[in-house]
């Protein structure tokens, strides 16, 4: 639980602006599968559903904590939409993969002219191990800026561009975590056994 060290009235007012602006376009967001289920300073919980599919599956919940906003960025966690518990890395519905630019690499054992294109993926959700609660590795997120690996990319460099705003963060999470879902994946495992007729007398 973060401690509120900035003037709470300032953070509260900025938080309320986020919610008012969200609600002014709430219908638009709802059609995209964004459901605002809780908005009580400093917390917001938005449930994301894959609205393109029928029946529509709920994919994930996103919990925001706007304590100290915007002297500090919001905390963002991918959570179980029904319990609000942050997912461990192994429980994530998906790690918000981003496609990296395709790279040409030489094929070992073949002449140098023989090359193949390889396109990698990089997850926005990062953790040390499957049991850890992952962080959203994105500028504008508290966990990103507090991580020692990002000490050179401070919040103040992003604050004025609105990197921590509610809709901006939801856009990123929805784009990489929900919009790539285009159908249900069904795996059928056939089982082979022997069929017997009536037993002989």
């Amino acid at each position, binding site marked *: 639980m973060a401690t509120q060290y900035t003037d709470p009235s300032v953070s509260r007012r900025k938080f309320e602006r986020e919610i008012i602006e969200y609600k002014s376009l709430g219908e638009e967001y709802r059609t995209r599968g964004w459901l605002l289920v809780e908005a009580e300073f400093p917390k917001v919980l938005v449930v994301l559903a894959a609205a393109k599919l029928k029946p529509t599956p709920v994919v994930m919940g996103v919990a925001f904590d706007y304590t100290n906003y915007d002297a500090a960025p919001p905390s963002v966690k991918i959570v179980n939409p029904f319990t609000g518990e942050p997912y461990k890395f192994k429980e994530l519905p998906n790690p918000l993969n981003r496609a990296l630019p395709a790279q040409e690499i030489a094929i070992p054992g073949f002449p140098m002219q023989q090359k193949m294109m390889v396109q990698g993926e990089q997850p926005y959700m*990062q953790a040390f191990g499957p049991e850890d609660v992952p962080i959203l590795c994105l500028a504008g997120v508290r966990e990103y800026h507090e991580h020692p690996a990002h000490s050179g990319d401070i919040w103040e460099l992003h604050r004025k561009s*609105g990197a921590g705003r509610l809709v901006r963060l939801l856009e*990123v999470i929805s784009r990489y975590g929900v919009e790539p879902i285009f159908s249900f994946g069904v795996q059928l495992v056939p089982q082979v056994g022997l069929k017997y007729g009536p037993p002989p007398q």
Partner: protein
Amino acid sequence: MAKNKDGDVDLIIIVNGQPVPIDANANEPLRTVAQQALDKTGNSGQPLQNWEMRDSGGNILDLDRKVGDFHFPDGTKLFLNLKAGVGG
């Protein structure tokens, strides 16, 4: 469709969730509309190339195309958001 009388179309640009009305000329590139929206909302922290504009269907719009090419009806909402950038 853009208004015939003056070639303008009234757009609502939603910058990181903040709506701002823009009276756009059909002959200007969408880039100009995006820059106006950033200026009106005081988003001066990042240059325009770090932003992307999408329609309500989630399709990324080419900022170099003219506004008139898209045949937006008046009141169309377009979403201008900061690009995610490189994570990790």
